[in-house]
């Protein structure tokens, strides 16, 4: 069993047959990791999420022999069955299947796993990988990821190309050591729809780790829709850094759903770097049992005339807990910006808990920034109204919860995925002891 050491970094890089420059980056990240203390609840960003019980070195990195070489029988087969022009399945960061339509190939779309990208598109990866979005300095787990990342996806859409069909990627964790890296680059005027789905067996035992990173680079006039769906088993600890960067008149439509893990903490940041940039962050999360979700979002207006719009909606039941901490920042010369953030929480049982902490740091003076946060339970009058039309109580409750999530569901551009998420929501609502 390996731990997170410098030797392990070298062993992983050697096993993957990486060029020198990638090894150097891994080692540089490792140096940051080594020097950064483990976050504790004394750190502001981690005040509500304790990692005390995470046995990081017991999990260790995913080295050569650890990865699964076939999809386990308990993998969610539906997750893999999505109509897309490009699709890929990875288990423990190892590519198992891969398809890219001739149409997309002819367009010059690059869609491949990250290791192939390092080998075949080294110049592009060198330019964009952990240099513009997520960097090792972002935190202990960004640094850990930089040192030990394995698997994930590279999407590159050349200038002016509108990818004809969506791209879909399924990332399954079997050995519980998951370090996927998503790097999406849209050059000027490019367009694409890309989706990552993360999963692991619901029955898996022991501590699993997903220490991922997502980097979304949207060039001038480019338009990216990125959908991330997470349905890990509840033995998973998920610690991620995700950042999208939007150029002049670019658009980033970023949609995420969080259903799984025992504990997750994500840093999700939108950077609007140039005038005319637009970014929308839509989040849906549903926790039950003892699940703990901690979402730390930032909308950074680094230029004037930019628009950001965040809507995160969560439902919690049993002893589940969610934390959303959001910040809109505007630099002094980011005038005429429009920033909006809203976090809506539905507590299905009084034992559940949601913390909602909006924030603004506005240095410009001609701006329109608003935030809203609500925490409430299912409305008795809504429940009665549905029941008064013959709908049994449990179904009425489901309908209300599904309705609560509907505005976000409508933003998911895959019919099959929407359908499956609706089923997951139904599953989670289940039956309740009280309302």
């Amino acid at each position, binding site marked *: 069993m390996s731990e997170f050491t410098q030797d392990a970094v070298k062993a992983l890089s050697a096993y993957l047959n990486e060029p020198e420059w990638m090894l150097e980056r891994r080692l540089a990240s490792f140096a940051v990791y080594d020097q950064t203390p483990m976050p504790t609840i004394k750190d502001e960003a981690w005040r509500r999420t304790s990692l005390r019980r995470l046995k990081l070195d017991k999990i260790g990195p995913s080295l050569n022999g650890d990865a699964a070489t076939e999809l386990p029988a308990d993998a969610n087969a539906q997750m893999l069955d999505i109509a897309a022009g490009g699709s890929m399945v990875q288990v423990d960061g190892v590519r198992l299947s891969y398809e890219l339509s001739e149409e997309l190939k002819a367009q010059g779309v690059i869609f491949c796993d990250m290791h192939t990208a390092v080998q075949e598109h080294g110049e592009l990866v060198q330019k964009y990988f952990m240099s513009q979005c997520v960097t090792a300095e972002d935190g202990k787990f960004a640094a850990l990821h930089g040192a030990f990342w394995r698997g994930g996806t590279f999407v590159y859409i050349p200038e002016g190309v509108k990818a004809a069909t969506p791209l879909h990627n399924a990332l399954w964790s079997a050995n519980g050591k998951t370090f996927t890296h998503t790097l999406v680059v849209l050059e000027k005027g490019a367009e694409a729809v890309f989706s990552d789905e993360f999963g692991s067996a619901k029955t898996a035992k022991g501590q699993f780790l997903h220490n991922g990173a997502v980097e979304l680079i949207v060039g001038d006039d480019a338009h990216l829709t990125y959908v991330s769906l997470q349905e890990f088993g509840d033995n998973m600890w998920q610690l991620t850094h995700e950042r999208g960067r939007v150029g002049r008149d670019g658009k980033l439509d970023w949609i995420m759903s969080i259903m799984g893990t025992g504990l997750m903490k994500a840093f999700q940041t939108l950077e609007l770097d140039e005038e005319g940039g637009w970014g929308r962050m839509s989040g849906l999360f549903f926790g039950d049992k003892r699940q703990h979700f901690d979402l730390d979002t930032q909308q950074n207006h680094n230029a004037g005339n930019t628009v950001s719009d965040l809507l995160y909606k969560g439902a919690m039941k049993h002893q589940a807990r969610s934390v959303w901490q959001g910040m809109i920042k505007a630099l002094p010369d980011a005038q005429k910006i429009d920033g909006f953030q809203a976090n809506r929480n539905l507590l299905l049982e009084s034992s559940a808990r949601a913390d909602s902490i909006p924030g603004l740091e506005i240095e410009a003076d001609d701006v329109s920034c608003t935030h809203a946060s609500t925490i409430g339970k299912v*409305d*008795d*009058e*809504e429940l*009665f*109204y*549905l*029941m*008064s*039309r*013959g*709908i*049994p*109580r449990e*179904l*009425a409750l489901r*309908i*209300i919860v*599904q*309705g*609560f*999530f*509907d*505005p976000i569901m409508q933003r998911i551009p895959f019919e099959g995925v929407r359908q499956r998420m609706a089923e997951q929501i139904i599953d989670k609502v289940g039956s309740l002891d009280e309302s």
Partner: protein
Amino acid sequence: MTAALEIKNLHSAVEDQQILKGVNLTVRQGEVHALMGPNGSGKSTLAYTLAGHPFYEPTAGEVVYDGQDLLEMDADERSRAGLFLAFQYPVAIPGVTVANFLRQSINSRRKAENPDDKGISIPAFRRLLKQKMTEFNVDHKFAGRYLNDGFSGGEKKRAEILQMAVLEPKIAIMDETDSGLDIDALKVVSDGANRLKSELNLGMVLITHYQRLLDYIKPDYVHIMLEGRIVESGGPELALELEKHGYGWVMEKHGVSAAAEA
């Protein structure tokens, strides 16, 4: 066989405050009963108690509906048995479309009858809904809108009529369905109610403050409620008398001071 709603000596409380103090009323399918009375006399409490709202606690008396003990049934069972409450203030359910909601309502009925029922097929449901929307003068765009969410007062009441048309109840309690309607909307809603009466042999309890509604939907009986009881019953002429003279004479006759009703 026609259904009947028999209310016998019904008492009901809201937050331990006794509101209904012995209501007696029998409504058969095909009959139209107007229920009038000053604010606070218990009309809406009667409606909610009959529909099974959990905040309204029946404390004495009984209600027999179609041969069953209504007060023993949950709100959803009462609906499936054919009792319908048209709300004075229909509740908005954001994120749930009218179509989805009605399909679930139909399927809940089918499933209650046959646990193995797979529900109405989507095309059959669409046909049904379209037909009802056309028949009851409801804009077809309604189907895709979130239920009562952002609806105008008139739209909400029309949506209630549409629900009745789809769910085909036997007896409907219409709680101030005329409130907040302009004259055109009132006509559309009344036409709908009259159509349902003739198509379904619907029995109706019209809770209203105004004779105006009764010009469009002709009552067979008019009842006046005061302090939680029905104190006067008669024919349509009773409503005309109220229109002319107000409630003063009723209160005087039954020894209720106006101040007590305020």
